[in-house]
């Protein structure tokens, strides 16, 4: 089946099998490598994409379901080689270590701040409770999100 949707700043249109997940489609057909397969069962958050602005588990969505949707991955954030404010904030506050959970964290930040520009730490924890990280202990991720909120409302 032909699948066609808005992917970051462009349109993607490719053939997909019904039994292909959006995750596999993005990685294998759209060649978007930032979306990761950490568990393939919705339990870790490394496959996070924004689906019409909302964070979802792309490993639990069929590619054919994404038709007509707007999908955002981390590749869609930096514009013309310049980091977005969220990425700058994660850079400044060391919100990453091994980097494997980072694309998911950055996208979740984006969705949160689009909907709530001044989140409290509790709001941040609510938004990120489904994103696992094994390296950072989450502290510097929270600091990065707060910094990103600051930078975006400057």
């Amino acid at each position, binding site marked *: 089946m032909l699948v066609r949707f808005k992917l970051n700043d462009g349109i993607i249109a490719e053939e997909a099998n019904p039994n292909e997940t959006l995750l596999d489609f993005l990685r294998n057909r759209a060649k978007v490598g930032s979306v990761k397969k*950490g568990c393939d069962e919705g339990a870790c958050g490394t496959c996070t994409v924004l689906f019409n602005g909302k964070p979802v588990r792309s490993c639990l969505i069929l590619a054919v379901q994404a038709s007509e949707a707007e999908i955002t991955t981390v590749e869609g954030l930096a514009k013309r080689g310049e980091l977005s404010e969220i990425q700058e904030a994660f850079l400044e506050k*060391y919100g990453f270590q*091994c980097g*494997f*959970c980072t694309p998911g964290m950055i996208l979740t930040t984006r969705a949160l701040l689009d909907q709530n520009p001044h989140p409290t730490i509790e709001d941040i924890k609510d938004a990120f*409770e489904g994103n696992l990280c094994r390296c950072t202990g989450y502290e510097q991720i929270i600091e990065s999100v707060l910094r990103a909120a600051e930078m975006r409302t400057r």
Partner: protein
Amino acid sequence: MHLEYLEEVRKLLHGKSYTVVGRDVRRVDALEKLTGIAKYAADHVIEEALIVKAVRSPHPHAVVKKIDETGALKIPGVVGVITAEDIPGENEIGYLVEDQPLVTEKARYVGDVVALVVAKDEEAAWEGSDELRVEYQKLPAIFDPKDALSNDLKIHDHGNIAGDVKVRKGDVEEAFSRCDVIVERTYKAGSQDHAYLEPEAALAIPLGPGGVTVIGTTQNPFRTRHTVARVLGRQDSEVTIITPYIGGGFGGKDTYGPVISGMAALAAAVLGKPAMMVYSRYESFAYRFKRGPFEIQYKSGATKDGKLRAIQVDYIVDVGGYATWSIGFMKRAAYHATGVYEVANVKVDGVALYTNNLPNSAFNGFGNPQMLFAAESQMDILAEELNMDPIDFRLRNALVPGSRTGTNQLLDHAVGIKELIEKVVEKADWQGKRVKYLDYKTKTKRRGIGVGCSWHGCGTTGFKQDWAGASIIVNPDGSVTYSTGIVEIGQGTITSHAMMVAEVLGIPFEWVRVIGNNTNTMPDSGETHAQRGTIIGGTAAVDAALKLRKRMNKVASEALNCKEEEIALENGEVYNINNASQRMSFKDLVYEMYMGGSPPAEYGFIKARRGYPDPETGQGDPYAAYTFGCTIAEVEVDLETGHVDVLKLYPGVAAGKIIQPAVVRGQIYGCGILGLGYALTERVVRGEGRMLNPSYIDYLIPTIKDKPEMAELVCVEDEYKYSAFGAKGVGEIAFIATPLAIANAVNNALGIRFYEIPLDPEKIFFAVKGESRNGSGS
């Protein structure tokens, strides 16, 4: 580590404060990771790569009688089935003991690989492995290491003991006879899964006749290279290991790097095509080697003046089906068994026993979390019996410069533990909280505060000396190409190396580019584990930089017509410290070197400053230097549910010079949460040798909401003379201290001690209720 690198560098820098070391810079991997272009193993895609799937024994102990490939080969898309007979070289991948085949003919754990199915795509690989018919002759299985001791059933031909370790110092019997207080308990420390977010993966590409390149998840590219070469029957130089970004290691990819790379390489070599193996999360949980459970009998004695006089420890390590790294962590535990204290009389006996459980292996802490859980619990019990505050008792016995360890190693400097404890205690308001929590009693909640002290020798444990190489090339335009064999697993070490090189050469940090990750071009720096990346890996970098710098000083002194010792290099400028008008740019200096035939490159190579403990007495210097940790934990226990809520953690480390403060802060916080997981939420549930919860849904690592309040990190910079900038290692120390502190805090809250970690809410609930279950009592 033959030089006092700390002082040597200081002299070169004319005693000035550092320009980049000790500050926060942009990590060299930051941009790639933040923009999503960083490539991990499974991101390396070759269209025509075949997919490799392992076929595994469902039985914990069985001989493979027959493998019938016909059904599998009929599946469209299946290209081949590989068994032990197809191995071109040696079927041996053992880490410290040569007991481990890559593809086995006798299964020794559930999941032992008996064949590889190779197919054009994932679906075919699955169907092929479904159709492969393997006939087994089942054997009785051993799951409890204590059974292995007295059993006729042999898991390996050489018997059920994989190894043992002894430490003997002084005379414990005599010392115990003089003790006023003796405490003896049995402790159990459980397994733990690394659960890093990136599953294991390897892509192998055949190269010419017999050679292969492997891009795989590994923490030890050179050991991986040698293992692959051995399996393929080739020379090391015919195998190339490329290390991509690694999505978390923690020791798991240290042990497992050669295993998965070996399987992918074997498939590629046998079939002559690129072959990719990517573990599912299930495989990663169910079959990758984990932390080894310990059962420890710990006896300690003290005199009423508060001095710890003797310890006697007997412990058993569950090795699993193959030894892998278990001998190493068994030994490390023995060498650290005293805890951070000076004890004159020490008797430690450890034995590592094979079972038919999943093999156990390297994981952050490497035997220390298990052993120090016992040691630090004992310290609290002793303190109570002596009617002393647990902190005062620890301070009374803590190691100081001039102390000798349990293995009789003299620690003449870089022993910051006492100062560290004092500072963490102050930060946590220990005394105030002890009083406050004594009175804190609601109907359903109790609160407590506890301390855990840790230490961790930096460097590889065991037989092999740990060496490290580093390479610096100064390019004609003044930029620097630096290469190390230390792997970036998230810990930021390679950035530290670049900073240290920039500092010694007196150039802006941005001029140094770190390349590496290819065994053909990078120096062998040993494994990325055991907190050695900076103290040993980084010292090789400084070794190279020093040598190069001395040569640069010579060339510069000739150009500027002054003495070599007068040359200063700073921020890309070269000048005479006694006459600043005599100067040139770094770029011009480099030009002079090229033009004058003075080598603009240097290779550093050092070996760790340590020896080999005597096999009968354990006496010796097993590690170059020790990092110390102290964490205080405040907890609240819900009496009605048995749940433990960690309110706050106060972490502290004495790790020598801190090269990147923000990065170290992140590591320590990460370690705190890892420790909380080991203490409370992470349980490897096993039944008949199988892992029953191989999923993030049922193996629970802490989420962001499980993070307690974290106090600002306390750092004592007890510099080590012989390393780069006086740095020691930080990767494991704060993890180890955390569960010790939490366990002691729970005891403080409840007045009930638990002798097993992870702590189990059910056990806590029933213990509180007054019913007796395993592990309760005080």
